[in-house]
């Protein structure tokens, strides 16, 4: 093992050159393109109905209807968000009971929303936080992106090692630095590139919401955008590390991509389908961060910090497995 001789300088060099290689080889551009098109399409689908409603309003009643629009969006998306977050109805019942006893006070809502709230089941604090206390449109987009980014990230991260093992290109660098530096440098380069792409996506969507839609205060929008960006960036790290590991196991980049996709999607699918037959199978989601990643958007800071640590722990486990394989295998 050569972890003792890891060089920060080599890692920085390898990471920066790896980003260039990734962009020039096309994988980086493909990821950039797919991530941008997908994210902006999602944003468009979420924002478009709001724009249509707003376009139908006269200037005079725009202001009064703004709250109505927001409330409509919130109430329409609440069941979907509850399902996405895995909030069970009995949790809501318990919460409702607690609220009745005055343990928890309901959030201050406008009159129309209050009327709607009376007609519908009570809300969970998490959904309230995401949809009522934070810009709901952005929250919905974040949840969709946190769910989809693991699938997209495989397009960027699948070929960290496999391709250069296949064409023996690694042999030009193996005598010039440690295997550990190559492995960590390429992982960090990939993570940095994906973080930049995520930043561009979030900045674009937030800018559009702030300038064009104007239904949320700019400060709140900016702070929530930053939170969402960090959540997205952190949630992708374990999946990049997983792809690093898979990339050390096979010599074919294509096979590496297929396996990465199958593992990422397969765990989710198996957990969902399996849980229909036997409820405990749902815990298979915890083989990957599927089971926890939404908690990065949890209202309690300690909870989201704990989730961040858990995501980093997943990342470290996958990185260690990948590094061990890379260090001990023939190249």
């Amino acid at each position, binding site marked *: 093992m050569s972890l003792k001789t890891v060089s920060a300088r080599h890692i920085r*060099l390898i990471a920066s*050159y790896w980003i*260039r*290689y990734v962009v020039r080889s096309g994988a980086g551009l493909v990821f950039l393109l797919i991530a941008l098109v997908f994210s902006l399409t999602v944003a468009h689908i979420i924002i478009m109905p709001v724009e249509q409603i707003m376009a139908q309003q006269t200037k005079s009643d725009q202001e009064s209807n703004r709250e109505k629009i927001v409330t409509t969006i919130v109430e329409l998306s609440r069941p979907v968000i509850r399902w996405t977050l895995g909030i069970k109805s009995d949790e809501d019942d318990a919460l409702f009971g607690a609220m009745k006893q005055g343990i928890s006070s309901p959030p201050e809502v406008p009159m129309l929303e209050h009327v709607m709230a009376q007609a519908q089941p009570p809300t969970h604090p998490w959904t309230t936080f995401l949809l009522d206390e934070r810009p709901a449109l952005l929250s919905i987009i974040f949840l969709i992106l946190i769910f989809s980014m693991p699938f997209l990230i495989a397009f960027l991260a699948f070929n960290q090692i496999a391709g250069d093992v296949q064409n023996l290109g690694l042999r030009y660098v193996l005598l*010039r630095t440690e295997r550990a530096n190559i492995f960590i440098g390429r992982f960090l380069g990939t993570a940095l590139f994906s973080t930049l792409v995520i930043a561009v996506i979030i900045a674009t969507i937030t800018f559009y919401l702030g300038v064009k839609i104007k239904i949320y205060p700019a400060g709140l929008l900016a702070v929530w955008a930053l939170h969402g960006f960090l959540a997205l960036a952190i949630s992708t790290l374990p999946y990049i590390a997983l792809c690093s590991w898979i990339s050390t196991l096979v010599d074919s980049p294509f096979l590496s991509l297929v396996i990465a996709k199958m593992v990422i999607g397969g765990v989710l699918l198996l957990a969902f389908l399996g849980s229909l037959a036997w409820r405990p199978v749902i815990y298979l989601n915890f083989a990957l961060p599927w089971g926890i990643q939404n908690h990065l958007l949890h209202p309690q800071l300690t909870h989201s910090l704990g989730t961040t640590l858990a995501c980093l722990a997943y990342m470290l486990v996958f990185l260690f497995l990948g590094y061990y394989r890379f260090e001990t295998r023939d190249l």
Partner: protein
Amino acid sequence: MHAICINRISKSFGRIRALDSVTFDVPSRSIFGLLGPNGAGKTTLFSIIASFLKPQTGTVEVLGIDTGHISQLQGRLSIFPQDAQFQRNVPILDQLVFFRLLDGRTHHEAQNEVLHTLDLVGLQSVAKRRVGTLSHGMLKRLGIAQAFLGHPEVILLDEPTAGLDPANARQIRDLIRKLQERATIMVSSHNLAEVQELCNHVAILDHGKLVLAGPVDAITRTGREYNLFLSRPLQENELENLSSLGGVRDLKAITVMGNTQSKESASYLVTLDLSGDHTNQDDVLAALLRSILDMGITPRKITEGRSLESRFLEVTGG
């Protein structure tokens, strides 16, 4: 002092035994040829020396350092690996500068060194081109250039001239000779004439086993060959007289395309046996040439023959 010590190296790929307890040493400041038929294990051995592959048994020491700790050899050992590819869409200069930056150079130093090395292999004019646009020969020279970067003390070259045109092959051979002044160079090649011309030590592998190793002079001692071109063909009795000289093992007319020589041709292959303790190559050659002159024949040309090739075929059963 040995630059490389290979001790009982074995390596298998599944059921195939690629190397079987191979042991030999490479002397410092030598040009060492690693020979063997296809599949003999040459590239596997190179890859083990460079620590790309892990051996099942045995150890390799380069400059006194176990290659299990290959990081301690950074900058001192370099390799031109067979069939390894560069990043296709990245300019040559960028890739080689990256290698030198890893070796601890500043960007400016790295760029100057790279341009100088590319000049040595005739690639400076294409330094800014992407690797994907280079021809096979250029790629080969690029691979050799990266092995020559910096000041490595041991350089491994896996078939460096295969696929190069004669002029470029000659250029690479000249470079190797020049580098011998400051480095130990280990070369694998199928071109035995080239190895004989270039190397002073060789090892021959066959089916993963070492069948012969040592100085070229010693290996070819029992069958040193020379091509002899005379002013006229030899008579039967002249041929017998010359063949019976001390140190001459065999003297026969060179056949071309399966036919014996024409009457006008006077080319002969002389095989010397220098295995006797006091038999000196120059003495035997001098005696031979003197006898030829005494017969009234003028030796027009004498060139070194394919002694190594004959020995190679002998030990590998080719």
